[in-house]
């Protein structure tokens, strides 16, 4: 089954293909690989619209997991799905609220680190302690690439390598900025796709 073929098909055919993929439980790898290509970005909106229009809530949850992974392959790990799983009808925007909180917290933690790098030269213990907190937050929302860079920074602290710490911190900041862009795009897509409402199966 070709993903490109599905994109060219009617909405009805795409919906049938989606349901088939979910049933076969092979969707994730296929969608992730296919949708890394920029030309498929528009498909996300169509995909999410169909999810909301045609799928039952339990299927929507699965499909959103695929979507969030597809949008952020490599940047987010399974823990992000754990966060999404906490979202329910009582807290319909929970994931976005948590992500917003993460970026607020992480900006503050990074500012602490920046000040420490400037005002406490070679204080590897202090630098490490601050970075440990940032790493913890990254773990909590599944920000895997940011977490890796945090770990790299801590390794350099352990080695007493100032230059390594400085380079690594720049990477942490870059990953932070990229992750913010990706997640903003993801939530924008969700909003464009429309609210999740009661779904009825299409007549096949």
């Amino acid at each position: 089954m070709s993903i490109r073929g599905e994109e060219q098909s009617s909405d009805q055919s795409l919906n049938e293909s989606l349901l088939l993929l979910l049933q076969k439980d092979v969707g994730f790898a296929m969608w992730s690989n296919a949708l890394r290509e920029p030309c498929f970005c528009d498909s996300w909106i169509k995909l999410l619209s169909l999810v909301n229009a045609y799928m039952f809530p339990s299927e929507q949850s699965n499909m959103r997991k695929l979507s969030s992974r597809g949008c952020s392959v490599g940047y987010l790990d399974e823990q992000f799905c754990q966060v999404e799983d906490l979202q329910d009808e009582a807290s319909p925007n929970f994931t976005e609220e948590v992500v917003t909180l993460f970026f607020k917290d992480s900006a503050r933690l990074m500012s602490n680190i920046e000040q420490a790098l400037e005002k406490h030269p070679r204080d590897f213990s202090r630098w490490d302690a601050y970075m440990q907190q940032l790493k913890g937050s990254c773990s909590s929302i599944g920000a895997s690439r940011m977490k890796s860079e945090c770990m790299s920074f801590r390794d350099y602290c352990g080695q007493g390598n100032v230059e390594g710490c400085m380079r690594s911190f720049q990477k942490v900041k870059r990953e932070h900025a990229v992750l913010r862009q990706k997640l903003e795009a993801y939530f924008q897509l969700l909003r464009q796709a429309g609210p999740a409402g009661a779904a009825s199966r299409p007549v096949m």
Partner: protein
Amino acid sequence: MAFKNQGSAAPRALVVEDINVDRVILSTMLGKFNCETTIAQNGKEAVDLFLEGKTFDIVLSDKDMPVMTGPEAVAKIRAMGATEVKIVGVSADLGGMEAFMSAGADEFIPKPMTLGDLEPMLQEVISKKNMSG
């Protein structure tokens, strides 16, 4: 989510965590298990709650916090005679396990904690509550 709470009172949880996002996630997870959750933003706030006579069925504490760390708070809580409460150390620092266990914690869970980590601990707490009536 199937969770066996045989009609007993909701488990009372204390979350000791200084980072907002971690606090929110953990509190929400506990909410899924119908826990009554109290928040402390550092070890000293947690100790103060015990000094005020508050009791909890489970404490989930981060390690590195301003004012007082998790292990320091755990040691003080145990020294106060609060030996029955289940205390769980939670940290992204795997080296924190030794610090927490030495201080008197019952368990250590590395961050990030998942619902799957929480469920058996809360089942244990509920069972203990049911047995003690």
